[in-house]
């Protein structure tokens, strides 16, 4: 038996909008600690990891660990039927093959039940070890979205480099090149507008902008975004989900191959 009641239903709507373009089908895992998802895109280049901790729900009941396979497109269709102020409750039985989404209007005068079929998805789960990152950049999420969007009109790959001077986003395409440098800036009125750069070691990595752009679909969830970079690891782009969890996107870097150097 599973019953999760989320007062701020719009969060779940936003969460889904931010992953459904990257992944078609995924397993949602429920345990006593929280509601989570880990899924890769079909080419295994990007991974999304979602966690909504149980404390963030008004009511959280999960008797046994459950894994529910859902088509995210279909789930998004159903959640779009919920109002932004609605309270969303997710319900499922242990042996059942459906999940129910219940939407209650804030005034309790409208209650809607949507039942969706579950799928059997054979997905691979990757173990992501804790790592010390060489550089961590925290910046306004809207700024990051703007940079990714702008650069993708010029080229298809972004090089992110962190140095003492700041963080540089650059690209090159047929029509020319583009470089955007952000400097550390903590003297702002609102803390969420700050740009904080923690650099332990300089780092420079290349990524496909196509994926970065799909990560920025999570911008409505959080005012800030944290980008963690290490030269031997995929980049982590993290958005906090209110006080209850996070969405983390992992993206494998582009690699220059050794053989290409030879004639």
């Amino acid at each position, binding site marked *: 038996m599973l019953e999760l009641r989320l007062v701020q239903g719009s969060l779940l709507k936003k969460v889904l909008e931010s992953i459904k373009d990257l992944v078609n089908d995924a397993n949602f895992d429920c345990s006593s600690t929280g509601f989570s998802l880990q899924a890769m895109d079909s080419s295994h280049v990007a991974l999304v990891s979602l966690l909504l901790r149980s404390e963030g729900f008004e009511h959280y009941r999960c008797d046994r660990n459950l894994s529910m396979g859902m088509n995210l497109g279909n789930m998004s269709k159903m959640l779009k039927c919920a109002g932004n102020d609605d309270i969303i409750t997710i319900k499922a039985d242990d042996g059942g093959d459906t999940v129910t989404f219940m939407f209650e209007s804030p005034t309790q005068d409208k209650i809607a039940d949507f039942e969706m079929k579950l799928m*059997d998805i054979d997905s691979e789960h990757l173990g992501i070890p804790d790592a010390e990152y060489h550089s961590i950049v925290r910046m306004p999420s809207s700024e990051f979205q703007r940079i990714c969007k702008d650069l993708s009109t010029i080229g298809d790959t972004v090089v992110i480099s962190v140095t003492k001077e700041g963080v540089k986003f650059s690209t090159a395409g047929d029509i020319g090149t583009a470089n955007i440098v952000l400097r550390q800036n903590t003297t702002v009125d609102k803390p969420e507008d700050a740009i904080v750069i923690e650099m332990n070691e300089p780092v420079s990595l290349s990524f496909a902008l196509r994926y970065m752009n799909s990560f920025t679909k999570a911008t409505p969830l959080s005012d800030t975004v944290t980008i963690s970079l290490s030269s031997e690891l995929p980049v982590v782009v993290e958005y906090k989900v209110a006080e209850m969890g996070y969405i983390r996107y992992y993206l494998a870097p582009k690699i220059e191959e050794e053989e290409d150097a030879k004639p």
Partner: protein
Amino acid sequence: MGIKGLTKLLADNAPNAMKEQKFESYFGRKIAVDASMSIYQFLIVVGRTGTEMLTNEAGEVTSHLQGMFNRTIRLLEAGIKPVYVFDGKPPELKRQELAKRYSKRADATADLTGAIEAGNKEDIEKYSKRTVKVTKQHNDDCKRLLRLMGVPVVEATSEAEAQCATLCKAGKVYGVASEDMDSLTFGAPKFLRHLMDPSSRKIPVMEFDTAKILEELQLTMDQFIDLCILSGCDYCDSIRGIGGQTALKLIRQHGSIETILENINKERYQIPEEWPYNEARQLFKEPDVLTDEEQLDIKWTSPDEEGIVNFLVNENGFNIDRVTKAIEKIKSAKNKSSQGRLESFFKPVANSSAPAKRKEIPESNTKGATSKKTKGGGARKKK
């Protein structure tokens, strides 16, 4: 060709071992391609209607060059690194099969002449397909073209599929692309079908995973080879009346061809008098292949522009504009850095949660569903 009915047998009995994949998702992968099979396909498909083929001024066929050139560029553009493997001397055991094919072709040639005389277009189409033969000249042309393009070529001592499988087992390539199911019997860990199909057909690549096949069929590799021999391979006859399904049942029951032969009803099934199944088995298990590191040093290099233009345009009458454009494509494909994959950084772990749909539910599992699911203690693996 290949193993009779193996695709269907696997689809029925090991459905999880085959996966449809997008062509695009093979970026950055090194793939061994069975060249002879591809050339044969090009000769049939590229620019042929009836008995008319693409030719150069001297009247020599160029379909294979056209096909090889364009298809290879398509692979390179997708970031795939192909290595073409050419057939060497066919093994003794294949003689019978080859003789059969030869006589079939002779029949088809006779039929074709008849059809042309009668002017029956459908028949001309049908029989001319069957008369297509890959000659040494075709092979040599393709090798020359590939080398000019900077694509590595491996000349197998014997069967190309066996050589491809060896490359794959040695970790030199990610998978083997062929249409011939033999590749699985030779033990290629990953086998790709339809990779070389034209993009216009929009057929997804079918990826076979040999380890999963064995797991799903609950057979060892030796038993799988026996199963293939019983189903019907290129190297020896099979027992009349035994197809894939029966063969699978018999192998599961008895374990090997020897035990089957001891237990089978010899009245009902006629065992061929001379049946070199053991030799065929040996051929699959220890094929005649190159394993020398030196010879298998596979490198992708820059294309020889002048050489390509000279060969295709001057010698074979290709359109110069098209060829130069194509060379540009090869060069730009080479400059692209390749996209990494998450698996090269993170390792798969077993999932701890039970699927909601499953009736049996594991003992209450204390493993939290946090982001880090490393070393899932007592985790259940999904079947």
